[in-house]
């Protein structure tokens, strides 16, 4: 078994969930504040698209954007001196794009559940929009936001199609666990495949348990909770 796949996968999933988590929250906060229905629907559609597209199609678009002969890809190559396609960074980009809709949708749903009167009341006692978000909306939406984060982490960890398209399957560089499973089976090395599969199942199971813990956790301020 090649341990590099495990390391690459964990590094990719960890970095991508940090990016996805904050991007998803900001995107959800923005969409919730849009007032025109048409614009809201269009933006929501674009943000959700990677969830419903086949990952290979998402990867195709990423290739289209970051390819070295495209403006953005060329910019990275000429100005920053890095090639995005077939680099480790590409695995992160693929994971972020594909897991983003899960984070965004969970956060948006959780934000919209927060009683509007709380926000109105906060405004009338002089709290700034930013403070209202950090002190009231986010804490109240936390169970939904956290479970969205966990789902997004699992999705990023399992990402295959888009990663194969934009990052390729280079052992020790861009070969994540799902790609390692594929490669091992393709090469007829079932021993290695079992081990990779075992690790993926183990991590995924922990993720599900973690999510249940977050969503079912009795919040201390709910009725029946004890005062400090």
């Amino acid at each position, binding site marked *: 078994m090649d341990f590099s796949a495990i390391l690459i996968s964990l590094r990719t999933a960890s970095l991508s969930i940090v990016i996805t988590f904050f991007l998803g929250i900001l995107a959800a906060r923005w969409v919730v504040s849009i007032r025109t229905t048409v614009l809201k629907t269009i933006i929501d559609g674009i943000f959700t698209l990677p969830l419903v597209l086949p990952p290979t199609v998402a990867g195709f678009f990423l290739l289209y954007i970051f390819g070295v002969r495209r403006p953005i890809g060329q910019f990275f190559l000429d100005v920053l001196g890095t090639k995005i396609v077939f680099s480790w960074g590409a695995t992160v980009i693929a994971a972020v794009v594909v897991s983003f809709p899960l984070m965004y949708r969970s956060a948006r749903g959780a934000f919209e559940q927060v*009683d509007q*009167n*709380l926000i*109105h*009341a*906060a*405004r*009338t*006692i*002089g*709290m*700034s929009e930013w403070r209202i978000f950090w*002190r*009231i909306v986010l*804490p*109240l939406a936390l169970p939904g936001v956290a479970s969205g984060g966990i789902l997004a982490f699992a999705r990023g960890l399992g990402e295959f199609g888009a990663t194969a398209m934009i990052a390729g399957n280079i052992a020790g560089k861009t070969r994540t666990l799902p790609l390692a499973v594929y490669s091992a089976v393709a090469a007829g090395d079932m021993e290695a495949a079992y081990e990779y599969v075992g690790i993926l199942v183990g991590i995924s199971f922990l993720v599900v348990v973690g999510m249940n813990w977050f969503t079912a956790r009795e*919040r*201390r*301020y*709910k*009725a*029946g*909770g004890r*005062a*400090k």
Partner: protein
Amino acid sequence: MSLKVDIHKKLKGFALDVCFDSGGAPLGILGASGSGKSMTLKCIAGIESPDSGHISVNGRVLYDSARKINVKPQKRNIGYLFQNYALFPNMTVAQNIACALPGSRAGKAPKVDELVRRFALDGLAGRYPAQLSGGQQQRVALARILAYEPEVLLLDEPFSALDAFLKEALQVEMRQLLAQYGGDTVLVTHNRDEVYRLSEDLLVLDGGRALSMAPTEETFEKPRQVQVARLTGCKNFSRAVKLDDTHVEATDWRLRLQVAAPIPENLTHIGIRAHYFVPADDDMAMPNRFPIAVHSLLEDPFEWNVMFHLPGVQHSPQTGIWWKYAKQQHNGALPKMLSVTPQNVLLLEGDG
């Protein structure tokens, strides 16, 4: 102290069109649900924006469509007590109150302590809102609002979320609070008892329009329109025509009544409150004495509700008349004759 409001806003099904000028005395706004009363408060607080108009407090303009002024709710300095109190459930009582105070955490502490004591919340500062009773929640919400020292206090159906036995005690507290509070207050409710107990001036809203604006007592004593009389609790209405300077004919009831002059020119209806009939079997000299045919009876714990009509008149919702009397006052057989004093016949206009 003055609050000037003149706003227009198109809403689903009707247009809100309200104009009033509060001179410092507690103002009540009475209206049925969907009359636009909560929307009026939300526009004053800046939670909603009117389509056009003007709002100012003590000369400070908060909203003016012509001058394109629309001050953010954060800068309006207007306190809003929500129907469900809108306490932040993730914060303790002390944290909720501290949210409305400026400055550092340490600087806020003495002020929070003072408010906790003033609103009789001792020992509850560390509790979360869900662990408090409805009355305690209301006190926390008021403490949080007054921590912000608003120039105007808006109360949106403040007692509707409370159990009946708590309401009256809290209304007494609220009366004391309003008496001490220096700024303007506006109380919105559909409950005539609340508005009578807590406001000095009264604006009656119906379908987004102001029907009347007058001292509360006067509005209850002498309502001029059918809708106003109905909102202040009058249950009996009949179409009416003027006969002479002191007499009208209640056409739905087929009853000739002596009334107090002057009779308005545009009289269309009369109204009589269910409490104002008195038994008149023996006293022949009473004015407006008439025989009754009892149609149905409803028993309350301490009152009888009698639905009657005039003998010979076909019973219908128009001809039925309610009489309410305390069991203690009169607890024998039902009288055969009732009467009503001329001053207690309300002379009204409006299409009902």
